[in-house]
């Protein structure tokens, strides 16, 4: 069996184990399941598991695409001003439209997609979009938007501010079947085209000149895959908030474990699903009697992994 297939199978197994553990948390796995237990499993735990699986894989896939397109191992949708854009949207949803679930999700989605589009357009004015320029423009837009976000947070009352800061951290507590359906539809529509573009992405990593020589239209591939990635990640973020570092870490871990070059999309996607669930499991059990939002765990663990990664990549001269 090929190493990458084996590793992918392990990721699936990890995700499945995490799902069983989550259900087991409530001690419902025994024989006698009462009606109340069935309700909890059906209405709370199953949507939570499915949201984690779908959002995790969406973020991971988007991260793999952005890293490939920017040819930078530190790329993730976050460098497209995505997190701050989603947060601006969510803040507007919370402060201006009263914080209804649908309003927050919709305005976060619009904010995320809008900021990514702005970053792409500004970068394109300066020439081609590959590589460092996209990242630097993204950082600039993110800084402007975080100024706007801070303004909005200081103008809110403390209840709204706490809600907003929970949302920005990213949490699975609000998972519902309607959210799962939205995520499933988005994944079904967007993931297959991105997976099919894996070959083109791989060629594009060789550089625009070589890709053009091989008959590829570099800018078009970039635009289409980035659009798919941003739409996918925005949908995930609209349901869970922008959970930090999943998009950044999953491609690296997957690459390290499969030992394959290239965008490595399928293993990354599967690993994203497993990572998100285990992070949530940890978030609920790390401190006794205190449930943390999943974004705290991914933020702290992902951040530490990132520092290791930076030091390591620096040694091997990749960044």
């Amino acid at each position: 069996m090929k190493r990458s297939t084996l590793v992918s199978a392990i990721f699936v197994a990890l995700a499945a184990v995490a799902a069983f553990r989550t259900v087991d948390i409530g001690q419902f796995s025994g024989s006698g399941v009462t009606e109340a237990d069935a309700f909890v499993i059906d209405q709370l735990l199953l949507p939570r598991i499915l949201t984690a699986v779908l959002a995790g894989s969406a973020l991971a896939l988007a991260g793999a695409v952005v890293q490939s397109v920017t040819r930078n191992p530190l790329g993730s949708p976050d460098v497209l001003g995505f997190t701050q854009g989603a947060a601006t949207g969510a803040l507007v949803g919370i402060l201006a439209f009263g914080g209804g679930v649908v309003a927050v999700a919709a305005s976060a989605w619009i904010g995320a997609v809008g900021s990514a589009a702005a970053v792409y357009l500004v970068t394109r004015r300066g020439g081609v979009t590959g590589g460092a320029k996209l990242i630097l423009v993204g950082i600039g837009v993110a800084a402007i938007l975080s100024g706007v976000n801070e303004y909005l947070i200081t103008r809110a009352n403390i209840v709204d501010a706490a809600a907003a800061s929970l949302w920005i951290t990213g949490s699975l507590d609000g998972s519902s079947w309607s959210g799962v359906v939205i995520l499933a539809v988005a994944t079904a529509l967007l993931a297959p085209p991105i997976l099919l573009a894996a070959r083109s992405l791989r060629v594009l990593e060789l550089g625009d000149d070589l890709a053009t020589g091989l008959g590829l239209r570099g800018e078009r591939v970039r635009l289409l895959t980035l659009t798919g990635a941003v739409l996918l990640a925005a949908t995930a973020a609209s349901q869970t908030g922008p959970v930090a570092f999943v998009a950044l870490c999953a491609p690296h871990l997957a690459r390290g474990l499969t030992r394959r070059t290239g965008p490595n999309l399928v293993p990354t996607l599967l690993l994203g699903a497993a990572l998100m669930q285990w992070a949530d499991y940890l978030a609920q059990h790390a401190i006794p009697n205190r449930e943390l939002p999943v974004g705290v765990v991914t933020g702290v663990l992902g951040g530490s992994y990132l520092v290791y990664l930076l030091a390591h990549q620096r040694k091997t001269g990749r960044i």
Partner: protein
Amino acid sequence: MPTRRALGIPAALCALLLVCVLSLGIGALPLAPSAVWHGLTDPASSPYAVVHQTRLPRTLLGLLAGTALGLAGAVMQALTRNPLADPGLLGVNAGASAAVVTATALLGISSLGGYIWFALGGAALVSVLIYAIGGGGSSTPARLALAGTAVNAALYSYVGAVELLDTDALDKMRFWTVGSIADAEPGSVVRITPFILVGVLLALGCAKPLNTLALGDDAATALGGKPALTRAVAIVAIVLLCGSATAACGPIVFVGLMVPQIAARITGPDLRWLLPYSAILAPVLLLGADIVGRVVARPSELEVGIVTAVVGGPVFLLTVVGRRA
């Protein structure tokens, strides 16, 4: 060039004086320059209280913090040979923030005198970290900026986590993390002045060695320089300047990025001119942004950190799009 940069100093000082007068005069109670003068000098006059209790500390804090951030940005850009270096973007201010949040939420320290040490420690840790992972003097702009963004993201998610667990901390910190000089107290100005003075002296002292260092380590050593010592002193200066400015005002982004770039248009790359110019022009920018913040959102005010982010961001974008990547 030589006459222009010599003539520019008095012009820049005049601009600084002008924004100081405006900063003392503009606000919820507008004062004419003559009233400002009376308020400063005559304890019996009616504007005395307003000028001495709120406007003067605010203006002095703006002066100090502006100078600190501008100088730190200029030294940082020289040290990393990178035009996009900024204490805010590279996470030094976030390091100070994370340390201050830790001190406030977990240890219950709420006075500036207590947490300034934490701010300095946090700034120092992040400076060394960023410098190490960003690749020191050989970094590309994108590498350094990404390293900074990544560290920023990690630190702010930590800050977010602490605030989530402790709503009181959130309520206090959400105003501090914006970056503001509005609530300046005379005590906090006095508290950070020595740190910033030492930082300024160290930074200005670095000008000549850093000039030599720009030629590369080998050439600098051949010319009698000590690259390792220069770098160490420059980092200490950055830490003192950023740490104390952040402790007093909260994290303010982009001042350190914009000012040295504007100053370099006048002076060219010679740091013996560039550093003093940055030190004078940065408070002009910071106080100017603060005045804009007082005027645009009447009757309330915009914090200066928000104004610099919203104004500085486009400047950053223009720099990025304009340069050949």
